[in-house]
């Protein structure tokens, strides 16, 4: 396994997973995953559908309880229920793949984003929560939608609401599960700009992606999953070669112009079996 990232022994890893296995019934979805994310890194988790990307990040934030292995978040062990109490949840923001079924009652953007201010043992909203919610919505370009019911927003806007919900607590670590799936290019660029600003401010990011897309310049390391195993951990691999397809507009610099590209026919590159663009 290649490992080109700079190991800083002085600071604790932000995410540290060791020997992670996850089984659901007869399916063995994660098969021994080791993953370390250090402070300030932007790590992309890549892989085809069904390779275990979402299952992995869901295990890392405590939604999936791994069958074997350990996860440490910000230096504290993650376990079922009370054993996770030591984790400083206020420093972690999670963006799920898509808005869940939502509830049976319509809720406004403000109400949904405000729920991001509750974490760990904090069960009540802090003073000045409205301003924090406004600021978070402003970061995703939806400041004028504070009072709009979320279910009436478009899919891409709903996705941005979920990002705002994770940003509102001003996390040090952001875990995103395909944050730009189904989001138009203009919004992807806006999202990438927001992320760049936050990363400059010291944010650590673990992001599941189908393709590097607009985030490519930010990504410092890529982890490629295949069949529930890490098959590549190092420099971001090049995307497949449909970038010059008709209708695809390039508005971002290519990070791979320095020649550090991975040969196309290695297992790593094949593992990055990126799907056809939406």
């Amino acid at each position: 396994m290649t490992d080109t990232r700079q190991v800083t022994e002085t600071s604790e890893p932000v995410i540290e997973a060791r020997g992670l296995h996850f089984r659901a019934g007869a399916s063995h979805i994660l098969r021994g995953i080791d993953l370390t994310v250090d402070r300030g890194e932007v790590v992309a988790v890549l892989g085809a559908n069904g390779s275990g990307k979402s299952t992995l990040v869901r295990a890392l934030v405590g939604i999936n309880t791994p069958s074997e292995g350990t996860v440490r978040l910000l230096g504290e062990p993650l376990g079922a229920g009370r054993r996770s109490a030591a984790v400083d949840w206020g420093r972690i923001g999670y963006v799920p793949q898509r808005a869940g079924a939502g509830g049976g009652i319509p809720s406004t953007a403000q109400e949904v984003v405000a729920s991001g201010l509750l974490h760990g043992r904090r069960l009540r909203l802090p003073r000045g929560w409205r301003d924090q919610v406004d600021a978070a919505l402003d970061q995703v370009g939806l400041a004028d939608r504070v009072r709009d019911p979320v279910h009436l927003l478009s899919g891409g806007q709903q996705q941005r609401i979920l990002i705002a919900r994770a940003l509102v607590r001003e996390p040090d670590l952001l875990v995103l599960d395909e944050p730009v799936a189904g989001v138009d290019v203009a919004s992807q660029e806006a999202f990438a700009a927001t992320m760049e600003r936050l990363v400059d401010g010291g944010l650590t990011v673990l992001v599941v992606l189908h393709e590097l897309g607009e985030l490519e310049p930010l990504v410092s390391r890529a982890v490629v999953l295949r069949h529930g195993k890490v098959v590549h951990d190092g420099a971001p691999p090049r995307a497949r070669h449909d970038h010059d397809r008709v209708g695809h507009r390039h508005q971002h610099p290519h990070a791979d112009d320095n020649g550090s590209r991975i040969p196309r026919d290695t297992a790593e590159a094949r593992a990055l079996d990126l799907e056809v663009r939406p």
Partner: protein
Amino acid sequence: MMMMMLTDPFMQRALIAALLVGVTAPVVGTYLVQRKLSLLGDGIGHVALTGVALGWLVGAGMGLSPNDTLAVPGAVIAAVIGSVLIEVVRRRGRTSGDLALAIMFYGGIAGGVLLIGIAGGSSGNLMQYLFGSISTVSDADLWLTVVLSLVVLAIGVGLRHALFSVSHDEEFAIASGLPVWALNVIVAVVSALTVTVAMRVVGLLLVSALMIVPVAVAQQVTHAFGRTMLTACVVGVVVCVSGLTITYWYNVSPGATIVVLAIAVYAVVSLVAPFLTRGRPAHDPHPDLPDDVDLPAAATERAAAAAKECR
């Protein structure tokens, strides 16, 4: 006439009970609708019936008088146990919540009828619990209602943001390190308490209606969680108090009157609501963003025209 009603001590107790139920039931109902468990109140109500019969049995065994002294405490205990049990089943995910509810329905009714027979009563004794019997509310019942209502309101309103979070997106709540299991149990227990609080007013078979129908009314006119809860409470209080007032003048069942009234409000509001929302100024929901595709000149012109139309 009105003064006569308000000075009648039976009616005073009944009105206080109705008022409390009118507020608490929709608060809890909002969370149940939010988590798509609208029928949970019914399931708990059925289990509470077994509790009533069990309380009766124990009371008879201890030679207490009247026989039903322990009926309400029995209902509280059975309802709490039943609601927590359903949460456990839901969490383990082996049986769907739907199936678990169904089993509770049948087990609760059957257990109640069986036990009341063993206690030497008849299923007729259960009628006042099934359909409510507000005229028999005693001072002790009223105090229990007041205390339980305050507990339900303190939790339902005080923890509303946390309860909203777990009800809206449970996985996000887990990933935020919230005590999701504890909050879920709190919702279940609070639902159980509400059922027993409302038992005397509308009866166990109709208690769920009082939790859900006001929320359904509120949903027609608002698109926010907080406002839905507030509106539902107003609707709940209005139908409970006016329903009870009707029964002071006409000899009809208070529970049934209240529920029919609530459904009538629902019907009227759903007929009127479209006219209310139509009056609001429309605003263009489409953001003015460029497309991911390069449009031919004619299409660009049409896009500009469409944007103007929306404004």
